[in-house]
């Protein structure tokens, strides 16, 4: 047991409201949907491409609302675009989200106005930004002093990508006609299994001690729900996904799994920052090792 000051936290837990984990899922799903949109468009599967564009558009329109609602001074949301700061993942994310939203909305409007070449070009722009939108949030939380996020900096982007892939696939499955939705159903199934696998890998890499916040307390039930629903969704899809009803139920499971996983990550972050042992123990070990190395050298 490491020493502490009355068991008080050393670092501050994040102060984000539930808008933020919800945004993480919505933004990621919109990003992956844009990638899927561009590929389907290139293949000539316009039906699915347009559905995925609408999914991306819905995400791009909802995202800023959620982000602004979370601000301490919402009326100053425009300050996010006051500077471009490469050292701040949130600054990069704000610009990417703005450009993504502009491209997706522009593509939709261009299509309505009949400007097809412009619509296609803007779709390509959105598809290029999509992967950044799906992963920057992982970099954003890893770039903090929150132990379970920082120590999982190599794995978090893959967890978020898996959830985004599953989310976009599930939305495509729900909203596209079954005849054209096969790629979406495959994305959903693969994403669901990848989500279960990547979270497992993340916990393994964190190690027994550092993964504790995911295994007990409030994050554990969220994570348990995410694991169950992602595997249930994936298995359901493999077993009876040819039936539209089964596929839709699976899609709902997978969407819920992705959302729960984001909430689990935010919750585990709060727990790990709130207990000083997760901050102090690894740092004490590092400091002692360095001190003994210095002692040997001198």
């Amino acid at each position: 047991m490491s020493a502490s000051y009355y068991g008080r936290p050393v670092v501050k837990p994040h102060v984000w409201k539930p808008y933020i984990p919800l945004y993480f899922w919505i933004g990621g799903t919109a990003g992956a949907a844009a990638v899927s949109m561009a590929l389907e468009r290139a293949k000539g599967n316009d039906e699915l491409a347009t559905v995925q564009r609408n999914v991306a558009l819905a995400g791009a329109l909802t995202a800023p609302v959620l982000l602004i609602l979370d601000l301490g001074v919402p009326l100053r949301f425009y300050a996010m675009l006051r500077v471009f700061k490469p050292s701040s993942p949130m600054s990069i994310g704000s610009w990417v989200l703005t450009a993504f939203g502009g491209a997706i909305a522009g593509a939709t409007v261009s299509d309505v106005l009949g400007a097809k070449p412009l619509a296609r070009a803007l779709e390509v722009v959105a598809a290029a930004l999509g992967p950044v939108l799906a992963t920057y949030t992982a970099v954003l939380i890893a770039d903090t002093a929150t132990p379970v996020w920082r120590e999982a900096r190599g794995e978090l982007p893959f967890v978020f990508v898996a959830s985004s892939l599953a989310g976009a696939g599930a939305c495509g499955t729900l909203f596209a006609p079954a005849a054209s939705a096969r790629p979406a159903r495959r994305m959903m199934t693969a994403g669901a299994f990848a989500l279960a696998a990547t979270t497992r890998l993340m916990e393994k890499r964190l190690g027994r001690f550092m993964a504790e916040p995911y295994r007990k307390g409030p994050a554990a039930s969220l994570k348990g729900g995410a694991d169950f629903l992602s595997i249930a969704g994936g298995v359901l899809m493999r077993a009876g996904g040819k039936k539209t009803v089964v596929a839709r139920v699976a899609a709902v499971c997978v969407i819920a799994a992705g959302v729960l996983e984001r909430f689990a990550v935010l919750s585990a972050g709060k727990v790990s920052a709130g207990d000083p042992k997760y901050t102090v123990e690894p740092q004490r070990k590092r400091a002692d090792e360095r001190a003994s190395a210095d002692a040997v050298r001198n």
Partner: protein
Amino acid sequence: MDTYQDPAAARKGFFTDTTLCIGCKACEVACKEWNQLPADGYEYTGQSYDNTGELNGTTWRHVAFVEQLRGGASNDPHDGVLRPESGRWLMESDVCKHCTHAACLDVCPTGALFRTEFGTVVVQEDVCNGCGYCVPACPFGVIDKRDTDGHAGKCTLCYDRLKDGEKPACAKACPTESIQFGDVDDLRRRADERVAKLKADGMYQHVELYGRDENDGVGGMGAMFLLLDKPEVYGLPPDPVDATRELGAMWRAAGYAMAALVGATLLLSAGGRA
């Protein structure tokens, strides 16, 4: 000399010598007064004389009280062992470290947090939109979002007073010069001398100068502390790191994940429109 603005001032900071702290909390009060920060309320923590608890958006100086009645690293005054002759009472006035590599400043998306001409880190309250990113980013848990007006707050090293050539309110109020203000270079020299003297005197088993090392995870601190026990005993992280140091590796990992996303979508889409 004709420069269109003042030449950069020397880096300013604090050296907090905890061997001189008497726990009067004049620094806390002076800070609240000068910076017009709201009171924390009258809550008793039962943790020695510390009813302030922590640094946050409206508390920019915090005096820690550590009761060690067994001479070890125990904080528990209620362990049933009362041996006053072997006990001691540690006090330390904590404050923002004004890091050389400040994570809060790095991650701030609006530019509200900036580096002043004194080498300090300050929030521009009229720019901050309260996104809250700096809060989990700080490796010391110093900066916090305030409920009152929604934006982030922390020690400014009394930026307004410094501009007028005054020392910060806490250092001015400190009756024992436990809080010393000055040029960081001078303070480092002074702190080194003090540590050497204490070690030569041999009165304390453990004397540690916290924040002095420019090769630490934050590139050295503008506020240093002479500690008589391990940092974690005072609630300080033993080996703080500016998370932004690994930002390149984080984006690299994200890059692989982006490639995986595109690759997976391509592969899965190849199934055609059946």
